[in-house]
């Protein structure tokens, strides 16, 4: 695939999460859909402001947990009842209370692994390149104390000149154009 060229989007910088969220909310209300927020720490309202939608990670976690539970419980049952039955203090070979702890551990293990890898699989990480790092103020501030709203060029409403003046109505610290 040839490298993409042109404008990725316009990046507005804010000093406070409140300003960012007000701007993001307004942009979403005005019909923007290809937009994203960047904050130095998790700001849940930012996700809601740009139309946070449900993802499949909880479902993957649940499925992973249930699979782990079922797999370990069946493995223990198979070993104890059919593969290698042992008489332990005269107990029945199918002694489910003893199976609970490993089965529980596998539930947690597989739910955790499914959550972590499911998250990576669905969000496109690890990503070696992202255009917004081309903006010097983003490189310097995004992980410390600056809050960014990016309106992307893929949005049909995007126009380099009018979008810039639109972003400036939110009184950001700066608006910079981001190249691919």
């Amino acid at each position, binding site marked *: 695939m040839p490298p993409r060229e042109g404008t990725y989007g316009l990046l507005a910088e804010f000093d406070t999460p409140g300003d960012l*969220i007000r701007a993001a909310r307004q942009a979403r209300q005005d019909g923007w859909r290809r937009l994203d927020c960047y904050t130095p720490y998790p700001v849940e309202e930012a996700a809601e402001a740009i139309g946070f939608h449900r993802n499949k990670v909880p479902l993957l976690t649940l499925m992973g947990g249930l699979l782990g539970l079922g797999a370990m419980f069946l493995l223990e049952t198979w070993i104890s009842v059919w593969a290698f039955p042992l008489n332990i203090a005269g107990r029945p070979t199918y002694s489910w209370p*003893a199976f609970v702890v490993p089965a529980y551990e596998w539930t947690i293990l597989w739910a955790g692994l499914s959550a972590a890898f499911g998250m990576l699989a669905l969000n496109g990480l690890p990503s070696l390149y992202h255009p917004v790092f081309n903006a010097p103020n983003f490189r310097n501030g995004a992980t410390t104390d600056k809050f960014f709203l990016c309106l992307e060029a893929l949005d049909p409403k995007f126009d380099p000149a009018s979008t810039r003046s639109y972003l400036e109505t939110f009184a950001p610290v700066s608006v910079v154009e981001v190249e691919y």
Partner: protein
Amino acid sequence: MAHDSHAKTLPADLAAPSFVGAWQGRALMAGAVFSVIAAVLAVAEGSLEHLLRAWLLGLMMAFGFAIGGLALLMLQYCTGGKWGLLLRRPLEAMSRTLPLVFVYWLVVALFMKRLYLWAQIGDVSAALKAGLIDEIQAHCIAYKRPMLNPAAFVGVSLLCFAIWWYYTWRLNRLGALRDTQSADSTPFWIKKLENISGPGIIIYALTMTAAVIYWVMSLDPTWYSSVYGLLFLVSQAYAALAFAVIAVVSLAKADPIKTVLRQTEQHDLGKFLFAFVMLNIYLAFGQFLIIWSGNLPEEINWYLDRIRGGWGVVITLDFIFHWLIPFTLLLSRDLKRNRKRLVRVCQWMIFARFVDLFWLIEPNFKDAARNLHFSWGILEYAAVPAAMTAFWVAYFCMQLKTRPLVQTNDPHVAEILEPEHAHA
């Protein structure tokens, strides 16, 4: 940083809203109705047997709310956090219900001989000969006599009540005093209350263990479990936290809690509930697994009394009610952020605690061990604890009305009034 323009302001009137009085009235009515039902059932049964057993259940319930509230109050002074500020006044009011718990306990102490086998049996060898007890019981009662005797029961319980009352009085007094002082005293108060609460939690754990060993575990003098105190400690926090969440979310219908209850902290409380749901099943199942694995004749009978003869249904329901249902529901993020549904789950958790205590208490008695059967008396387990809890709730509401609902001399107040996105 905070921007003043978007922060809310604390309402001028921090007093409990007027509907707390209505709650109190409704609770009193419910208490009266259930008392009448309990009396009718006692007449139908023709004895006080089950009424007293159910009274013990009601005592453990009210005790759990009051002392569990005190423990959570001390916990939040040690950990800090905005959830603590939200719950502080409801928890204080819960801890101040201790006098009512004491009154409930007095009845148990008065009727000790009707409830506890070790109190009934004066002369062990005569009772053995008469066939009132078996050899194991005779041995255990004689051997444990220095601990299990009426004087020790009353003495230890009174000592525990005295210690709990001291902590209740001290923390409540300082909590009120703190608000009369200026903001520069805040660091002093944080440290001071932390220093009282830290050792207080340890003393609570020890005294609470002693109390539940005397009040509940000694119903069966032959059995012991070293995790018994912890089991009650966790389930007290389970029920007390559920009650406190119901209180604070219901209070949020009006100011002042309406202004300070944000979704973030409600979500945190939901996660906290979830932690106690997990810890509770962890200890309960751990105790079962160890005793089941050991399969020793001294220990296993306690479980057999509670599994055979129909009790298997109750323990299965207990597992489903106490763990499976709250666990699966509290996994949901949406549910923890939804006020109505979170309250429903908390109410369910308190109901599950009733079922659990029923399973713990009733099979201790000879007529019920390995033999779950219907009698008019068994319905007392629904009526008496419901009446006692209703009266307890009325007393709680009365206590809640005596103070402003938000502590003002606390740095978290400014934070909790900010929009949710201001802090991570």
